[in-house]
């Protein structure tokens, strides 16, 4: 045991957990402060009067009642975004191009996981499953999603990107967009041939839909219920595990060092005896696996998936990667969490803050405004270094 521990780099396990904690708490505090600030300002305006009239709560009270729930939802989706964003950012790190097919890799992961669970459900294995079995099935679904997505990502690289390695940078980008459409239609084709329907629903099983209530207390005339659904916990815990594992892989293992070496200088890396093609394949495999797992977790959280399910999460995760600084793994974590928080806060409070004029359907404006603002004012992202254009 001692000999084994000698080779385990403990800092590389503690550091990312600390980072995730700091990013989560930091963005939660900042977003909450903004929301509460706006609420306090609105209390004196027509919005506050109207709300007091209708529901007998002030905007401030309303904001506070919802706050814990919003933060938890924001974190849940934020971690999913972070896991997808890592796929974009890793590939960008080694090849300097945006793998726009990554959103479909995510969707394939989601479909494989959900179809597996649906199959298990229809064979009656989910209905009577004990809690332990339910979790085993979910883990199995996540693993299968990871495997399928990782394998697919590797194949896509081999078939659609590697032959274009020497071409100008625009060419593989266009290829990626083509692959993205192709995969969407493959999912549609396969689903219509086998099941005849595009919308697939995650079966209900285990205790994932229950809510754990921590406590209730009165605030004014309303009651605050603090609680978290089991599936949110599952999503957060699995995402954190994956993110920490990935961080460890990249920063503390031989393969991870080789990935970083290839990202920095492909030619010199090959002179060290590193098989560059194999490392690039590995990068796609790892990124794809994260995306696939994120797909299954997304399906667990949002229940319904269709062949286009990857588009918006993919675009958001891309935004998250750019926000954090594309090519920077820590940046992807930060970007994912910030974006998830921002979006959930906007979705939850916009309706009430605007007296219903603009509801949660406008929440995407925030994500993409962020993308535009970052590209204009800080193109290297929050954590990226300005390295200038590489030839």
């Amino acid at each position, binding site marked *: 045991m001692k000999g084994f521990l000698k080779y385990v780099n403990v800092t590389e396990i503690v550091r990312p957990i600390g980072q995730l904690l700091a990013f989560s708490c930091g963005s939660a505090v900042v977003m909450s402060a903004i929301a509460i600030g706006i609420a306090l300002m609105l209390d004196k305006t027509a919005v506050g009067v109207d709300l007091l009239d209708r529901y007998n709560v002030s905007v401030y009270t309303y904001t506070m009642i919802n706050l814990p729930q919003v933060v938890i939802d924001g974190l849940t989706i934020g971690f999913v975004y972070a896991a997808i964003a890592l796929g974009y950012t890793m590939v960008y790190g080694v090849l300097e191009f945006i793998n726009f097919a990554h959103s479909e890799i995510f969707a394939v992961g989601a479909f494989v996981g959900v179809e597996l669970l649906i199959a298990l459900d229809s064979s009656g294995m989910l209905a009577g499953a004990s809690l332990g079995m339910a979790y085993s099935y979910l883990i199995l679904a996540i693993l299968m999603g990871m495997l399928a997505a990782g394998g697919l990502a590797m194949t896509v690289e081999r078939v659609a990107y590697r032959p274009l390695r020497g071409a100008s940078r625009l060419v593989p980008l266009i290829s990626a967009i083509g692959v993205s459409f192709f995969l969407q239609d493959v999912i549609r084709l396969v689903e219509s041939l086998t099941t005849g329907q595009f919308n697939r629903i995650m079966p209900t099983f285990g205790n994932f839909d229950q809510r754990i209530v921590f406590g209730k207390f009165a605030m004014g005339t309303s009651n605050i219920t603090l609680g978290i659904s089991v599936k949110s916990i599952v999503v957060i815990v699995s995402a954190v595990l994956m993110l920490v594992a990935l961080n460890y892989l990249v920063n503390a293992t031989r393969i991870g060092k080789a990935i970083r*070496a290839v990202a920095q200088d492909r030619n010199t890396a*090959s002179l*060290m005896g*590193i098989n560059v093609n194999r490392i690039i394949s590995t990068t796609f495999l790892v990124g794809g696996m994260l995306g696939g797992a994120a797909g299954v977790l997304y399906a667990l959280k949002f229940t319904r998936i269709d062949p286009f399910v990857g588009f918006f999460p993919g675009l958001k995760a891309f935004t998250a990667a750019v926000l954090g600084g594309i090519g920077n793994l820590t940046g992807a974590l930060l970007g994912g969490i910030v974006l998830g928080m921002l979006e959930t806060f906007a979705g939850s409070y916009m309706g009430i803050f605007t007296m219903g004029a603009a509801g949660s359907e406008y929440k995407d404006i925030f994500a993409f405004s962020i993308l535009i603002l970052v590209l204009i004012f800080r193109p290297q992202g929050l954590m990226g270094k300005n390295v200038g254009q590489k030839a």
Partner: protein
Amino acid sequence: MSLLKLENVHSYYGRIHALKGISIEVNKGEIVTLIGSNGAGKSTILRTISGMMHPKKGSVEYNGKNISQTAPHDIVMSGMVHVPEGRGIFPTLTVKENLEMGAFTLRDRSLTEERMEYGCTLFPRLKERLGQYGGTLSGGEQQMLAIARALMMDPDLLMLDEPSMGLAPILVELIFDIIKTLNDKGTTILLVEQNALMALSIAHRGYVLQTGEITVSDTAANLKNNTEVQKAYLGMD
């Protein structure tokens, strides 16, 4: 016995004919230098040998085996290491990680550490900087790191591309002393240098390159006294 042998090698960058029938030979235990002006094809020869580019015509034989179409990461395994022009330090890997990358194909951890220790005795400066990022080192330290990293594979043949580039004279001397020491210990060296005088002072033999062709090939002592070479590369009249 010849360790490395290039025969009538033609290499291209796209449509540019960079090497026009190069034939050179490096024997075991020698220091051989390639001198020539910018763009003569010195680096291209090294790149062709280490597999970063493949010749269109001709053969590269190492230890009697044709390696002209072998991938660079496989060539490393056969005991030849190429320190590229500009040193090729990974800027955001630490000095220690850079050294570990040099031993990437080596699975033996204790041997890796042993060689790292050796590199640090050769260049004590590196030992103080093990935890620092490669990109934060000075030019001289980077060159030391590049050589130490190359030695992690314990190569039979070490190819150095412009090790003196951008270094203060005192550091150039240090680097060349190390090269000489390595050679005394049995490592064969193929050296590409702009600083022809320095290169010829430690080399056994040399080749003079001009626009992709070898114009003169002789012992280092004779090249030093060759009037053409003196005029063109040694700055003497």
